[in-house]
């Protein structure tokens, strides 16, 4: 088996403001995100030879992208993979270039969840035609199961009561909200305190209002090319070091060995990505990361799954502030899903946008710029328990 490491480069990116964009249509988001990417790369729309378009809620086929941009009969593929859509669309674009067939390709992820009643609704319904005999379990209850296990397993060790556990999780929420304040393109700009988190309405214990990300609209795009062509476009292109995607096979909900203290899909994706990138100590080597903080415990458990913290020790690192802007390993420097919301197929590309700008030293608000990051990592996980899709991509600057 081969590797994607250093085979493709990102030379331009665009990202719209995320939020309740009532007056923006799908074509608007495509045009705004892709044109920012074109300008950033200094290329023309007609230079794109192939495109990949990701959306879960906002359209079938690639026609939404071709019609908005007026591409000239180039191939456009539609990608969908729940919350990993944004990473998966980039993944496919990279393989298109790495195959040697396309020199310059476009990845774009768009979601208009707010066009539906209150967002994409509480349930993940698959397939569309159903006998309707299964329960529809909302995401909060899917991810909440992990929170419950984690609390029960570690509460004696850490001396938590129910409030104590929530206080720990609150630190993650406060961190992300603080970072969001420094990010103009984020949807939410609101500083919160631990007390705010504790007082908030409970959705599904331990998740209160501030422990869960909201739904929003947004779009982002990336221009992918070979490192040779990248060199001729700009000095500060970024290289893709690894791209991993792991699909669950239902193990967690069918096999008793699975303990709900970890996401097996996360663990598998991380292993694959680190092998591909040649990383042996993620805790030391990854400078900055964007995690899928759909819920606070998802971020907490991912610290361990991705080996940023030893198994069972993430709470200590959280308490110590390791993952804050000032810490040793900042995670979600732009406020994460908490502050951007989660337009499913756009999130992975929005995370890439943050890492891209951070590696280049060109973040729009210097107050959240990390000094000299070397390797950046993005992570997404989505879907139902047992059949999660987890994705990890690692980026770095050219030597």
């Amino acid at each position, binding site marked *: 088996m081969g590797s994607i490491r250093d085979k493709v480069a990102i030379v331009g990116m665009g990202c719209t403001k995320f939020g309740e964009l*009532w*007056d*923006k*249509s799908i*074509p*608007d988001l495509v*045009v705004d995100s892709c*044109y920012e990417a074109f300008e950033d790369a200094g290329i023309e*729309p*007609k230079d794109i030879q192939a495109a990949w378009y990701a959306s879960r809620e906002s359209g079938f086929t690639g026609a939404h992208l071709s019609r*908005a*941009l*007026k591409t000239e009969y180039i191939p456009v593929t539609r990608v969908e993979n729940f919350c990993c859509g944004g990473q998966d669309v980039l993944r496919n674009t990279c393989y298109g270039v790495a195959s040697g067939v396309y020199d310059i390709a476009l990845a774009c992820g768009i979601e*208009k969840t*707010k*066009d*539906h009643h209150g967002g994409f609704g509480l349930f993940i319904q698959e397939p*569309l035609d159903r006998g309707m005999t299964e329960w529809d379990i909302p995401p909060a209850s899917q991810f909440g199961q992990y929170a419950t296990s984690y609390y029960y397993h570690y509460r004696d060790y850490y001396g938590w009561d129910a409030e104590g556990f929530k206080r720990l999780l609150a630190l993650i929420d406060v961190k992300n909200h603080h970072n969001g304040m420094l990010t103009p393109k984020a949807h939410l700009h609101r500083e919160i305190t631990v007390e705010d988190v504790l007082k908030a309405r409970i959705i599904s214990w331990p998740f209160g209002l501030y422990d869960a990300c909201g739904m929003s609209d947004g779009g982002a795009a990336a221009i992918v090319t070979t490192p040779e062509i990248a060199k001729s476009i700009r000095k500060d292109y970024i290289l893709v070091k690894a791209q991993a995607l792991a699909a669950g096979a239902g193990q967690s909900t069918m096999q008793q060995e699975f303990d709900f203290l970890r996401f097996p899909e996360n663990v598998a994706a991380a292993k694959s990505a680190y092998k591909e990138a040649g990383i042996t100590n993620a805790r030391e080597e990854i400078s900055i990361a964007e995690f899928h903080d759909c819920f606070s415990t998802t971020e907490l458990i991912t610290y361990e799954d991705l080996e940023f913290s030893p198994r069972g020790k993430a709470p200590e690192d959280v308490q110590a502030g390791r993952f804050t802007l000032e810490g040793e390993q900042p995670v979600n420097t732009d406020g994460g899903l908490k502050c951007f919301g989660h337009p499913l197929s756009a999130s992975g590309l929005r995370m890439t946008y943050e890492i891209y700008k951070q590696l280049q030293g060109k973040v729009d608000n210097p107050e959240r710029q990390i000094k000299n990051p070397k390797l950046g990592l993005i992570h997404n996980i989505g879907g139902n328990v047992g059949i999660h899709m987890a994705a990890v991509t690692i980026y770095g600057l050219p030597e």
Partner: protein
Amino acid sequence: MVGITSYGVHVPLFRLDRQVIGGRGEKAICNFDEDSITMAVAAANDCLNGTDRETVDGLYLATTTSLYKEHLGATTVAMATDLRQNTYTTDFGNSLRAGTAALKAAIDAVQAGSAKKVLVTASDCRPSAPGSALEQNFGDGAAALLIGDTDVAVTIEGSYSVYNEIIDVWRNNTDTFVRSWEDRFAVEQGYLPTMYEAVSGLMQKYNYKPADFAKVVFYTPDARRGAEVARRLGFDAKTQLQNPLFDVMGNTGAAFPLMLLVAALEEAKAGDLILLASYGNGGDALALKVNEPIEKIRNNRLGMKGHLTSKRIMTDYLKYLRWRGIVPLDKTPGPVATYSAVAAKREYNQSISIHGSKCKACGYVQYPPQRVCTKCHAKDQMEPYSFLGKKGKIVTYNLDYITPRTETPIATTEVDFEGGGRIQCYMTEVDVDQIKVDLPVEMTFRRYPLWEEVSLREGVYLYFWESRPLRA
């Protein structure tokens, strides 16, 4: 001087041959994709032909067959006729007199100086039970009058109103069909005495005699009763009474008085005095004087005459019942779609106002509005472009006989427009023998015929523009 400066009407294309329901003549019936809103739009656009839309300050819609109890119809009509955003819109409801109530209010508004031009449109497609006398009499249609203070073709000389609280002809919120008490009671205690009272009240107030009027235009529930009132009041029903058009159209509810007025105006000449009287829980009587500018209005519109002669006779009663939703349709599952009020709001400009965009860089007209020009790829260089009133031709088309819908075949057309632009759209009132490439077509505002399930589920009615063969 305040009064009518333009008029327009819409009589649906289809006529039901009354022989199939045991009567004589024809009655005008809505197509399955028409309703009080679409007909009002057609009449309003007919009326505003030649008027700068920017100059209209208000639009009053009158109907007893509103699709909503809470959602203005006038705003939809205002968007589909391209009026300004700060136009004054209001709905008059619940009465066959709503049309004249709106007319009077519009005259007051211009007279008071609150507006310089107000469009009044009355439109109805009242539901009647199969086999009933009401079914024999009812027709569907709409009329529009532009009220202004310059180039006034018809001035309002005076008016008089009286109300009559009576349950004669009515429809409760939960009723499917309009009800009527026994005809003799409804006419003898309702219609006849009230019309008499309203008209004689007017004549007394302003000292008119029957001979003063060139024409007398009466709302009438059937072909005979109008003449009876006319005779009682001292008019010559043969020479003075406007033909109530029962043999070719039928009683069009709140629109009826205004449509018959337009028919009268089409024959009137300067100096004529016309009496208009409506009925519905009371009567409104108005005296109208015709002036020179009437000649200018007559020529560039189809009017009642043109609409009445342009027709297709229907003899298939079952089809009529299907169109009315009285006979249920085969509920074959349709395409999966969820309605989004958010997306709909963003798209009103293109879906209701039929605006495309024109590229300022290369001049290319496109629909729907784009950000990136389809021709030169310039980005965000667009200005709004209205297709309202533009003539087009069929470039290509397709007839689908398979998909079960209210009417088959379903025709899809690509239409190229004079002045630029192409629109892909459904075609309505398809004449299978006539449809061909290069067929001249015009655009018409209709209820979107697919997504019936969506309307039922979401409680929202969807509108769109379709192509159709030229009416004239």
